[in-house]
């Protein structure tokens, strides 16, 4: 086991290096650079730029170097000084831009994850143990609908209903008062109220996915020989379901958690834009659009690192949970 973990950790560094290279390469692929998009948007607002102004901007941002030189400098900065560079559009160090929204992103995503598991596991188990019952049909219908509906569309629908009924589309996680005064105990209730739509919207597809997975896995496990044997021996249904079948059925759910760390960091993107949530996803989207490459590069890099770490962790958890996996890895 220890051997396995060490090997995985050693593999981690070249993986991340390759990822960072690919990320940087892809970000600079589209024609133009940040200066192009800056000039385009400012020109649209009436500002005038001469060729000299544009060249000077490019020089200021270091965009006149070839991309591999820029990449080299970026990696050097990260390794030697822990400096992830400057965000062009924010005019601030990349890391401070990321930290700005990190805590809120983690809070939102974590809440949504808890919601997802709290809702999906019981429903999945219920559906499996009560296969073809009315309850199963309802859960299945909702599950399919939820998986098929794009999150952002659901967001728009819920915002519309909220606007129709209450006159407030509940844009963003904070009301103007909260933005002015900050979130305190007295307005925490309102904050929670504003969490409802995002939680439902972003949590739905995950929830429905897990319901489907758990249901299918549970049905599989319940038909296995060991479940039959246990039942024949007179073990209670609850023990069979929760101690044996569920444990085995959770495998895909746990390996699905590998991406959780990364999504904790970035949150969702399109739905967050639609609902004006101040989390990391929209920042990444904007930075990719405007070719704010150090910001985009850093976010994607951190995401990639978290995916690698997340996979490692979920593998370890799986090995701990499932003896079959543990033994194969130990032998191999």
């Amino acid at each position, binding site marked *: 086991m220890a051997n396995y973990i060490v090997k995985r950790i050693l593999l981690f560094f070249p993986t991340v290096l390759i990822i960072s290279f690919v990320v940087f390469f892809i970000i600079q692929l*589209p*024609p*133009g*650079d940040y200066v*192009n*998009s800056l*000039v*385009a*948007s*400012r020109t*649209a*607002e*009436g*500002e*005038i730029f*001469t*060729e*000299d*102004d544009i060249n*000077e*901007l490019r020089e*200021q941002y270091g965009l006149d170097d070839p991309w591999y030189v820029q990449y080299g400098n970026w990696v050097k900065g990260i390794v030697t000084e822990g400096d992830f560079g*400057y965000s062009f*559009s*924010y*005019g*601030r*160090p990349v890391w*401070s*831009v990321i930290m*700005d929204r990190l805590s809120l992103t983690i809070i939102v995503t974590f809440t949504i994850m808890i919601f997802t598991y709290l809702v999906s596991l019981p429903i999945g188990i219920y559906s499996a143990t009560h296969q073809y019952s009315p309850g199963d049909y309802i859960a299945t219908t909702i599950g399919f609908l939820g998986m098929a509906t794009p999150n952002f569309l659901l967001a728009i629908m819920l*915002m519309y209903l909220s*606007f129709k009924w209450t*006159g*407030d*589309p509940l*844009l*963003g996680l*904070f009301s*103007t008062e909260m*933005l*002015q005064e*900050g979130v305190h105990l007295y307005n925490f209730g309102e904050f929670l109220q504003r969490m409802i739509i995002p939680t439902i919207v972003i949590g739905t597809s995950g929830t429905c996915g897990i319901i489907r997975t758990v249901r299918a896995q549970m049905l599989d496990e319940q038909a296995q020989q060991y479940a039959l044997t246990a039942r024949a021996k007179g073990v209670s249904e609850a023990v069979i379901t929760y101690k044996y079948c569920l444990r085995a059925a959770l495998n895909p759910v746990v390996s699905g958690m590998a991406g959780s760390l990364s999504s904790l960091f970035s949150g969702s993107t399109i739905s*967050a*834009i*639609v609902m*004006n949530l*101040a989390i990391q996803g*929209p920042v990444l989207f*904007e930075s990719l659009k405007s*070719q704010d490459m150090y910001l985009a590069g850093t976010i994607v890099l951190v995401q990639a690192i978290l995916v690698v770490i997340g996979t490692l962790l979920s593998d370890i958890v799986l090995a701990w949970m499932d003896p079959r996996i543990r033994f194969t890895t130990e032998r191999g």
Partner: protein
Amino acid sequence: MKKRVIALLLSAVMIVAMFSACGNSANNTTDSGSTNVTEAATSTPAPTETATAEATPTPVPDSQTGVDETVGFTEAPDLAALVETGELPAVADRLPVASDVMVEQMESIGTYGGSFSFAYTSAGWGTGKPIEEGLFRFKSDGTIEPNVAKGYDVNEDATVYTIYLREGMKWSDGVDFTADDCVFFYDHMCVPQTFGKSLWDCFKVTNPETGEETTASFAKVDDYTFTVTFEYSKPSFLENLAINAKWCYAPMHYHMEILSEFIGEEAAQAKATEMGFADVAAMGKETGYYFWNVSGVPTLNPYVLSTEEGKNDVNGDYYEFVRNPYYWKVDADGQQLPYVDKMEITRISDASQGLLYVLDGTTTVASVGWQDMATLSENAESGGYRIVEWDSSSWSDLPSELQLNQTVEDEDLRALFQNVDFRQALSICVDRDEYANLISDGWSVGRQASPAEGAMGYSEEWAAKWTEYDVDGAKALLEGCGLVMGDDGFYNFANGKDFILNISAFTEAETDDQAQVLMKYFKEAGINCTYTPVSKDLLNENLPANKVECLLGPVAPAETVSIALRPDTLVPVRNYACWYGQVGNWYTSGGTEGVAPTGDLLELCNLYDELKATIDTEKRNEIALQMLQLHEDNIWIIGYMAPTSVLWAIDDKLMNFPERSIYSDEFRGLGIAHLQCCYFAE
């Protein structure tokens, strides 16, 4: 007006019925109908006698300078409270001396309180223009009036401008605002390019004989007077200044403590790091140019960015501009402006959320599009807003603007595009009535691209030129251009080569609907065409590389109050617009690069050179009109529809917001509404 708005809303409901997704304009800075730019802005100030420091400033038409000593000044309650506790000096000590204070003229005298609420996707000029205070400012008739400056004098040959400032005027931090601040701006910020802008044209003048360019020099006369001297005549200096340099002053006391010129390279770098900027250049640009978006920079604006944590970051989700306690304008009753306490700005991640904030009554002033008119009118009562319609200075609906690159690489295409008959064919082969109905749902009418009604050079004939729908006439013209009808029903070049009109566009301009309809007409006339929208970035690469043959959309958006003042979009002064292509390069490089123009295009460049060197106002107007005549003769920019109005959703309680005005960059967009004079009715 109210009746008009109601009628407008009603007709909107009727026409649009169910709000259809068909047809949309790239932005809502477009407009139609009657424009009331009464006169061209070329009206340069009549030169008075040679400037002396004693001379009386020219009269101020709209606003007034100075109030009677007996008028007592009053202030907003929150400021009065600060005076009470001794945190602020008394209001009379914060304002300029009574004889120099600026008195805004407005419809009704207001009361203090309330806040403006805005929603922006990013803080650029959107927050800057509405609160910008130029040395001189434009009025909606296209003339300028003193603003930060008290007045000016100019000598007979327009080489020396004497500009007077207001005595006792102060920066938002209470430090005196003097002539030093203006001279400092020019000598230490513009000339050394402290904020990364090459010296603006308004400070340059060309030797009429040699064509050599020289720059202005600024000199302080006394604390409240300075002169701007040119080697040769610069008759349009003040208007150009109002367009190029806008404010033309900088807080010397502030910048002397951060710029490397004064504190050394190392200390400046340390300052930059402390303030969170990447380097000295970024600090110079942000504090010097986009200063209103940097917390702590003294300004003369009615509102200054908050210094409070959580409200002072324009990249954050929320920020505030609060009342400048030293603002130097009052109303006729001596109440210090602005009336409204602050501007609250919420960041949105998508422009459409701005509409939601209008509907739920959050925003005070927001630009809206006619596409949303049905929704807007439905919720007007519950949202508590009204719609105000402004004119625009655009030549046509921007996504309906077709430009043919006069210097396109392909020789056959170039000859064709330069043929005025071909442009006429492209113009008359479109049924503009049907087009306007399809694209704007009746919000606009067919028209040729031409100056807005009332603007310099407007004529009915031009607006109607080549607008009569005539497919057969178009075909005859095409054949006259040497095109031959092929077997496929489309015209080919006489040498047998396929002729295809490749129309480019950029996605942000949302020209898809326009392109579909236009291509239908073009194909009916036998012109085979393609349409490729690309990202603006890619277009910005392709344009200077001369890779764009034909463009649909606003690059550059043909827009004028006066061609003489802002020639960028209508004269090949830089490598920028599609229609003149490489001629822009030719002009800016002095003939060493790009493609040399011929015929009328050359004439246009020559006229512009002549204009720059002409002092006499009448003569200048004449030249400007000649330049416009060339545009009318050639229709280099083909327009298919008049611009739609600029629409604002305004809080019902907001008073003194102009019901009728013009939206134009020269007038600083929303800035001409003079937000400092607006107030909320009880």
